[in-house]
């Protein structure tokens, strides 16, 4: 008999998850009927809320604010213990005391994107018009929509110009959208492992993930909340496929090779014989504990639609015409999801706009995920870029 172990059910109940969705353990900015969020799809979203975390203090000039933009499956808990998983903040390698983005020097803001599931309004939130979960009735959102919502939050916090906007992957897309939409409000921009548009291959991978979610019978056409369940199997498969794209062949080989998981010989079954299988299953099952399946559909869709040049007559350089923002673009050699060629196209457009830009490609075999990992050269570059911008901005470092 062929043994098959399916992905285990999440340890956290649907109730616990929905609590963070509507009543997050973060600060929340509420926007009422008088302040709708105008979405690219033509809908005015109202009311809505943005959940966010801050670290450090805003200086008297209000000139030291740094906005961190999170990636597809990230959230606002960039540098504190996650309220659901209990794990450290997702970017504590870059953000935190003694790190390149130190709350001692900067007022750091990180908000959950619109469409997310950690406290900002999204498909898992309650639709006030019906009293039920939005589900697929939630309007489709875009990267510019996310940034528009962040700008409303920044206004609410009384900040005119951000000292820096920083992000990797989908976060990097938001960084670029910030500079294209609000160039005067962004003093410096650190865009990591990203692109000015989503490639056909990347759209294809996202479609694979969405189809995996929608193929799960527990998805119920997006209405799983009404059934008190979550399509965790479909979402886990989506995460497993996506996770492969965040790594590299070399990194997988180095980490796992063909090694077996707690056994010497193959079991001649479809059990997780190989360590790499076991690892992927773990990635899938731990992800579904903290992420909403519909939110995954919406956020991947937002990335698919992203194309800055398309909004500027097909000429990327037009998006950055006469921009004064200081840019730092970083890519990683083994990143095949957002390869260096994408960053180079961005840098060429910035050069054509005479923008001040630094561009470094960092050698690593760790793939797209490298931006979240301990890569000292990346930290040195980030630190130096922000210090140099801080000097030009007249930010006085309290020490160091």
């Amino acid at each position, binding site marked *: 008999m062929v043994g098959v172990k399916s992905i285990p059910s999440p340890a956290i109940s649907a109730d616990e998850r929905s609590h963070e969705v509507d009543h997050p353990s973060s600060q929340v900015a509420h926007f009422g009927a008088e302040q709708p969020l105008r979405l690219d799809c033509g809908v005015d979203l109202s009311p809505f809320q943005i959940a966010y975390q801050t670290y450090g203090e805003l200086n008297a000039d209000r000139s030291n604010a740094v906005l961190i933009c999170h990636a597809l499956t990230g959230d606002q808990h960039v540098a504190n213990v996650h309220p659901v998983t209990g794990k450290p903040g997702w970017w504590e390698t870059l953000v935190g005391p003694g790190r390149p983005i130190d709350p001692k020097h900067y007022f750091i803001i990180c908000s959950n994107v619109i469409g997310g599931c950690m406290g900002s309004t999204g498909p898992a939130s309650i639709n006030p018009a019906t009293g039920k979960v939005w589900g697929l009735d939630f309007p489709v959102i875009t990267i510019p929509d996310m940034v528009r919502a962040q700008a409303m939050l920044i206004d609410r916090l009384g900040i005119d110009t951000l000292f820096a906007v920083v992000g990797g992957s989908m976060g990097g897309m938001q960084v670029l959208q910030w500079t294209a939409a609000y160039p005067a409000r962004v003093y410096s921009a650190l865009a990591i492992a990203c692109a000015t548009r989503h490639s056909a291959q990347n759209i294809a991978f996202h479609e694979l993930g969405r189809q995996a979610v929608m193929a799960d019978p527990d998805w119920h056409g997006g209405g799983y909340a009404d059934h008190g369940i979550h399509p965790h199997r479909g979402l886990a498969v989506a995460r497993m496929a996506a996770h492969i794209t965040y790594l590299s062949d070399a990194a997988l080989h180095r980490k796992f090779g063909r090694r077996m998981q707690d056994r010497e010989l193959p079991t001649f079954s479809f059990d997780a014989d190989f360590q790499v299988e076991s690892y992927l299953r773990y990635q899938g099952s731990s992800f579904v504990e903290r992420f909403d399946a519909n939110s995954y559909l919406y956020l991947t869709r937002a990335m698919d639609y992203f194309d800055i040049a398309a909004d500027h007559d097909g000429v990327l350089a037009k998006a950055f015409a006469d921009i004064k923002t*200081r840019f*730092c*673009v970083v890519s990683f050699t083994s990143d095949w999801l957002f390869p260096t060629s994408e960053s*180079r196209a961005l*840098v*060429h457009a910035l*050069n*054509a706009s*005479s923008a*001040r*830009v*630094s*561009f*470094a*490609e*960092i*050698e690593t075999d760790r793939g797209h995920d490298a931006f979240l990992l301990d890569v000292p*050269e990346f930290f*040195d*570059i980030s630190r*130096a*870029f922000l*210090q*140099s911008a801080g*000097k030009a901005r007249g930010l006085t470092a309290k020490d160091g």
Partner: protein
Amino acid sequence: MSVQEVLPLNGVATRSPGQYRADHLLVADMVKPGSKVLDVGCGEGDLLQLLETRGIDGRGIELSREGVNRCVAKGLAVVQGDADTDLVNYPDDAFDYVILSQTLQATRQPRVVLENLLRIGRRAIVSFPNFGFWKMRLQLLIGGHMPRTENLPATWYDTANIHFCTIKDFVQLCDEINVKMERSVALDLYGRPVPLNLPWWVWNMFGEQAVFLLSRGGGK
């Protein structure tokens, strides 16, 4: 292409007073304070750092990844790129000065590069090792082999320098593409300027390297 790869100017470095290289100080003196400068082939950013101390808005292009990353880690606005292929991305008149320091001889198309420098920049500053230097001539004439010097130690088969020229050759190219020479300085073996009142052939013989400040010539 970093200067170190193309031309290890060890001699010059030790000869120069203070922390900056003689040819860098000479180049920096040609740039008006407050201007916007692009350094093509900026190596590890030494010249850009010198320019920054003088209040100049400097940007750089560098071929080697290591060089770029060291520059960016110094807070400099440097991007990875190739003088032969990436200058076309910059718009006309984007800079007050474009500097090509000890890199011309390593480009595939020096003439096209030079034309691009003066399209992007209102002025260009170009420095290069002079192959008409007497020691070079002597090695070819007497030794019968391709010249190698302390500053150009690579052999013919492993050098990155593929388009060597003499001061005379360079002046001829400038004439051909209608480039105006606003200032020219030849440095001798010891990094000292060759006296200005001497004729061209002396420069071409005793200048170990040359630095030119160029601008667009009037229409022909």
